């Protein structure tokens, strides 16, 4: 890559960040509003947790709400 390559292209070329360097807030967006959700035979899944008094409660609730909202209009069908 040349030195004047724009930032995005550099990041794209560098590949993945080590897991430790990924910002928790970006990770939680994905881990709490994305991914496969299953139930049945479960001891526990995140959907069952009634989170109270949680320091990150606002974040988690908002992420979860957005997950629900995305089912309506925000989610584009995947093309082939």
């Amino acid at each position, binding site marked *: 890559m040349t030195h004047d390559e*724009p*930032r*995005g*292209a550099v*990041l*794209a*070329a560098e590949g*993945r960040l080590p*897991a*430790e360097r*990924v*910002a*928790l*807030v*970006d*990770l*939680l*967006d*994905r*881990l*709490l*509003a*994305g*991914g*496969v*959700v*299953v*139930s*049945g*035979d*479960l*001891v*526990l*899944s*995140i959907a*069952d*947790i*009634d*989170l109270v*008094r*949680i*320091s*990150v*409660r*606002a*974040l988690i609730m*908002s*992420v979860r709400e*957005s*997950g629900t*909202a*995305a*089912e309506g209009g*925000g*989610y*584009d*069908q*995947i*093309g*082939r």
Partner: protein
Amino acid sequence: MSATVTEGMSVVADAGTYLYAVARDVDVLCPEGLRGVAGQAVRTIARSGLVAYVSTVPLDQFGEEPLRRSMEDLDWLGETAHAHHRVVEAVAAAAPVAPVRLVTVYSGEEQVRRLLDERHDDFVEMLSRVAGRQEWGVKAYVEKAQTAAQPAAPQEREASRQESSSPGTDYLRRRQASLRTREETWRQAGARAERIHDVLRSVAVASRRHRAQDPELSGRDDWMVLNGAYLVDEERAEEFARALDELRGQGIELELTGPWAPYSFTVLEEGGAR
């Protein structure tokens, strides 16, 4: 190890099976020495051409009650989320992967096998949709200076000077003008975010908008107007990044994260695949 459980029977166990991700069972290799949440070794469960990545977790930490408490502990949550992510990344490096939502704990291996059986077709379809594609995250911020109260436009200042009869009226007028400016700035930023999203979407095969992050957690005061996720063909990654770079500037700051495993595009809710 797997508890023998019959359906409908309540089980008192001291260990559960934590599920991280599901992939096609074509080249089953569990990365050597891979450790997941609570420092436990990750192993695979193969079934019906699929493979699940799991580890055993102690239920005194991952049972419902303990989790209620530990989910309130940001350090614990961070550690667990990163450990989950590390496993997903290790799998994603080798094969298309469907990450599972954080903290999904089964009572035993048999239940995971049943999941792979019952949702086989959904997983296969999902994995073929994300194969050869990566998720990119794009966050757009309006810089703080842009949303701070700004002085009214010159003609409004002039008008208020001529018409004002008291300092109070003057103040209200200035405040209204400042609110209008602020509203207008936000409206424009919102419209700009829509355009950015549309451009990025055109390079992606799928997109999804997450809710804007809480400033306390993102660590930024700036107003987040877009928190998007885009599923992009691997060979178009640089094109996507270039499109993003062209959208930079004019008071909007864009932040690119990724590539991510396709977390935002493997949502499989109970009761049906999308």
